[in-house]
């Protein structure tokens, strides 16, 4: 092998990128060729000079910051499909919010409708709603159990609601509620009102939940709000049924349209607020 061919392989020799037989051939050549030895030394000087460019370690806490961003921006969403970590306070917060929402909702319904059930039935209805609302807030907080658990809660609650309908006098409640809100048919003002109420109904809890949850700085991904919002909407559906499922179709659609708009706006807005707050913290 001539010197030119050897020299063309010296870089690969230095970087140990040659097959063993080539390696041996070059070693043997170098032993007897002073010019090629000098060329190798010259190349080693180049690489040794490059070696002097060392970079200091990153600042302390980069691992923690990376994992925090991961939890805030990625796992928060993927946890809806499983694998998230649980903040110890989250379930309690969700239950508290759920209880408040259920209490307010039940109180409003009781006020609007003639009470035809027993106190026990009303209490059971309250517990049922608290479970549903709690599930909704857990979904919106987005940092608890996988979606299958939430879906199970929703399905169980929905099933219970149907089974308990005769006991809870729900038909009467629904009928009265429907009669009341059914007057909205043909009324532009009432339809607009229902749309706004439906929007607020979903947007406000999502906005609050995401603002509470999103404590890490970093860009906001509206898809996070959308994902949890859609799950929230799925969980809203049985509650909607309980509250006035027998509404005239047009009026119900108005309400639901508002709810969908609320879902689309509430989550991303809450995340934006959270990110804005974190950025200025």
């Amino acid at each position, binding site marked *: 092998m001539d010197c030119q061919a050897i020299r*063309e392989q010296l*870089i*690969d020799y230095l*970087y140990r*990128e040659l097959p063993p037989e080539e390696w041996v051939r070059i070693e043997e050549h170098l032993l007897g060729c002073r010019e090629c030895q000098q060329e190798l030394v*010259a*190349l080693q*000087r*180049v*690489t040794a*000079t*490059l070696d*002097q*460019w*060392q*970079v*200091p*370690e*990153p*600042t302390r806490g*980069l*691992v923690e*910051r*990376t*994992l925090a*961003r*991961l939890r805030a*921006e*990625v*796992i928060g969403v993927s946890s809806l499909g*499983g*694998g998230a*970590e649980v903040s110890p306070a989250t379930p309690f917060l969700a239950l508290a919010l759920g209880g408040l929402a259920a209490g307010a909702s039940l109180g409003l319904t009781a006020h609007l409708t003639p009470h035809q059930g027993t106190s026990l039935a009303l209490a059971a209805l309250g517990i049922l709603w608290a479970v549903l609302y709690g599930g909704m807030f857990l979904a919106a907080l987005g940092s608890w159990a996988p979606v299958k658990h939430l879906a199970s809660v929703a399905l169980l609650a929905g099933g219970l609601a149907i089974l308990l309908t005769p006991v809870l006098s729900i038909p009467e409640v629904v009928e009265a509620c429907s009669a009341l809100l059914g007057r909205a048919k043909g009324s532009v003002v009432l339809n607009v009102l229902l749309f706004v109420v439906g929007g607020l109904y979903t947007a406000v809890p999502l906005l609050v939940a995401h603002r509470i949850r999103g404590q890490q700085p970093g860009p906001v991904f509206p898809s996070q709000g959308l994902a949890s919002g859609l799950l929230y909407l799925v969980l809203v559906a049985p509650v909607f049924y309980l509250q006035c499922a027998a509404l005239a179709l047009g009026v119900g659609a108005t309400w639901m349209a508002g709810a969908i708009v609320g879902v689309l706006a509430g989550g991303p807005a809450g995340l934006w607020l959270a990110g804005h707050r974190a950025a200025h913290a």
Partner: protein
Amino acid sequence: MDADAHVMAQVQGGELEAFERLVKQYQGPLYAFFVRLVGRTADAEDLVQETFLRVYKARETFDPLRAFAPWLYGIATHVLGDYGRRQERVRATMARAVEELTASEAMEVSDVGDQAARRDVIRHVRDSMQQLPEDHRLVLILRHYHGLRYEDIAQALGLSVGTVKSRIHYALAKLRVELRRRGLLEA
């Protein structure tokens, strides 16, 4: 199986702790990778975070039968590309970074005389690297500072092994001339 690929398989199985191990292990090398290519240390940290986020999001696409590092640096290269597109003034950024990084590195050297000399060498090496075409610089940095083999680099960047090899040869030849011109190597 590559040890890190095994850890990545655990990540695919939902083990967040395994991912944390990978972050701890590769944060330093990735940071150095970005500092050498981008310059600004603060940006480099952001890019490290962005890379790990993308790694996690793309975890299902990783083949545990292949090596982890080339896959990781492939993603890092995409992150770098996006960064370059976002900041069309990379060259200007590098100029600022020279001062910033040289100063921070100098803090670590105790002897004052050595400090100045070393700072000069680093500046010359960095400036010489800047003379290389970006794709050549990327390949050389992966081989020289991160120990990726030609095949790994080819896999990470979607190139042929021959292209990787010729870029490294070209880059070192050009650096040799440039370093010699700057007096860092004997004529």
